[in-house]
């Protein structure tokens, strides 16, 4: 199966939801959307026009794919929402802000900008304790990580995404969900997966600060200007939690979650009538 299905432990979470062994998810008959995006749900490297089933989070991704000639989408909702079903939230006091500086990727893009400037903007805006969560690419960079630590923020990393089925931290989303549920606010300098997750998990969401230069981003995948037009509710230091939460749940496909039996069929995990799977 597509190795990106293992990223962030997506396949593992869905396996647990489906009543299978989460440590060894069966091959998925398709490719699971691995992050929130304003494009079609898949990354630049996925050019699966009519081939693989594209297991996307929301119908919006299906629509966006349709207009560029892609077909064979199945809207299943985000693995994070399945995890939220598996781990219902226990009532607890929320405090402070979890701040996600927008991240680059190991393979393609990097961020180029002034982290000190961003740190100053965070200090000016947030009035409670701040946890800065770095993506492992930046977390592993002592220069970047050190700046946030030196600023007095609590600096964490949810884990490693994995690559080619190796090094996947299948509890990545578990940690992220726990952290989000501990914080009152989620913020970032670009509207991204973490902000959408946070809004869906009950945080007040805010996108502000220097968005930095997204070096190496592929044409059409940089949403600067468009995101503000499409999702104005998220932008600014203070936002309407009701509006952002509703949008986030829609973006994650909350209305499209399948029950375990159906999901097993959608993922190709329950086809005894076939001689082999995948």
């Amino acid at each position: 199966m597509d190795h990106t299905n293992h990223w962030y432990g997506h396949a593992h979470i869905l396996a647990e939801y489906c009543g299978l062994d989460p440590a060894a998810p069966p091959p998925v008959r398709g490719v699971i959307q691995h992050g929130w995006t304003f494009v079609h749900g898949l990354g630049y490297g996925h050019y699966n026009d009519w081939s693989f089933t594209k297991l996307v989070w929301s119908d919006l991704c299906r629509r966006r794919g349709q207009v560029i000639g892609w077909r064979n989408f199945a809207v299943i909702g985000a693995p994070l929402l399945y995890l939220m079903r598996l781990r219902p939230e226990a009532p607890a006091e929320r405090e402070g802000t979890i701040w996600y500086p927008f991240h680059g990727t190991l393979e393609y893009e990097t961020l180029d900008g002034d982290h000190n400037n961003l740190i100053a903007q965070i200090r000016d805006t947030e009035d409670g304790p701040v946890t800065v969560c770095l993506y492992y690419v930046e977390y592993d960079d002592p220069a970047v990580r050190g700046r946030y630590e030196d600023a007095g923020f609590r600096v964490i990393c949810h884990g490693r995404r994995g690559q080619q089925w190796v090094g996947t931290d299948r509890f990545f989303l578990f940690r992220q969900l726990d952290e989000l549920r501990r914080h009152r606010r989620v913020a970032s300098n670009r509207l991204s997966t973490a902000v959408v997750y946070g809004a869906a998990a009950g945080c007040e969401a805010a996108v502000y600060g220097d968005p930095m230069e997204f070096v190496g981003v592929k044409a059409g995948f940089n949403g600067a200007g468009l995101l503000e037009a499409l999702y104005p509710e998220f932008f600014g230091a203070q936002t309407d939690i009701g509006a952002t939460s509703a949008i986030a749940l829609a973006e994650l496909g909350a209305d499209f979650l399948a029950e375990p039996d159906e999901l097993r069929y959608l993922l190709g995990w329950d086809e005894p009538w076939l001689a082999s799977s995948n």
Partner: protein
Amino acid sequence: MGRTLARIVELTYPGNVTLVRGAMQNWRDFDLARPSGSDVVRRFVLEQLPEAPARVLVVGPMSVSLVREVAERSGHVTVLARAIPDAAEIGTAVPTAQVLCGSLDELDGEFDVVLAIDDLSTVQSLERPTAPWSELAALVLSRLAPEGQALLGVENERGLHRPSGADDPYVRNADADWTPFATWDATRPRSRAQLEAWLPLGRASAVHDVVGTWSAPTALAHGPCTSGLATLWTGRSPVTPVLGLRSAALAGCASEHFAGWLVSVGGATQSGDWFLTPDARWVVDAGVAEAEDGRRFTIPPHGLSPFVVLVEAAADTDTPALRSLLRRWAAWLRSVTVDGMVPAAYADARLTNLVPDGDGFLPLVAGSADASFESVAWGALGSALDIITNQGLRHPWPTAMHRETRLAALGAMAGLAAPDDLGPYTPQVRDAGQTRDELLAVVRRQQEELRSTWSRFRWDEKQYAAWKAVNLGKRAVRYARKHGRSMPKDAAKRVRSTVAKRQG
């Protein structure tokens, strides 16, 4: 199937474009033909437009050239487009225009003229929930100043252009079909009566029939007397289902199956019954159509065209009627031919383009240039046979008859000698872009040909068996005669008896 990432476009747009909620990044409406791109709609819009409107709103991705022409008249044009590439193209081509890219509900302000020509389905954004038609129409009219004028296009969901088009909207799965049917939307007018019921009270309004196809209208009609002429005009298209249109015309509801309507709300309306084409305005009165250039003819009852007469005769194997019509047509064509050339005015002599005029005919639309008699005559005959073949209509010729032979026979009925090369005029069965009806016609035709071929095969087998029996029988008789005396008498008798039966 190649990579399709090229269809993800870079986010670039000029300074007169503003992105708002609903903006679509990777889409282009300009890749699809729209009514606003047609010559007749352009002519109508420019005729309707006040001399110098102060504020004009264009709703939807109207043809860029028309936006430019409107902007030349008005100092203040605002365009709403849902797709960023379209908005960028308009913004670049018409720098004086303000282009808002996104959803209709993001639009503010009041306008003296509102143009929403290409159906409100083109303002639905995939980024937003699909809105009912009435909500969008109300939004459009809410932007209209009290003394302003709006032109609103509505595609007829029940128009004949839909089932006869290359893409049946109820089965296609094209890129534009992210929410394809919208039959849940009961507010959308699906008949002229429903549209008229929607018209706002207290404002002058008029409904015009859009004739042709929705993506490429060829005429606009106003007034009930134009129905026959509009029926004739609709039948000019080779993909118009001939008999469906005829049936609708006889039922008095042909106008319910035209491509759509163009509604004028507010402003001055052009009174009377008239019929507008890209190059002529026909006034229709008491069943007579008269063009500005003096052309005049009596509209046949129910818009009966000579081609429908031919189709009926062909289906009934009424070859005398076929010959009579075709010889009259050929005689008329010869009468207008000068030195072997047909003048441009008569150079489109297809039966779908003609109306009876005394003993002859009158073309509805002139040809593009003078043309040779051969090309006009055989082109017209080929066109008739093409429609009959592709629509699977009944005809008097044998199933297995070759296409060129069939065309030659049709020409002979008209008294025309076949040219050396019939190839350019012979109908071709398309192998792509066929309509559902055309594909069904192919299936039917192939079933008939297969049945005919099997029948012929069985006949030939029978003939061969008989030939074998006769010839082998003769050999047996010779053998029996030669050796009969030495054969047992009863065996020889059996042989002779068997041979006699087979021969008999």
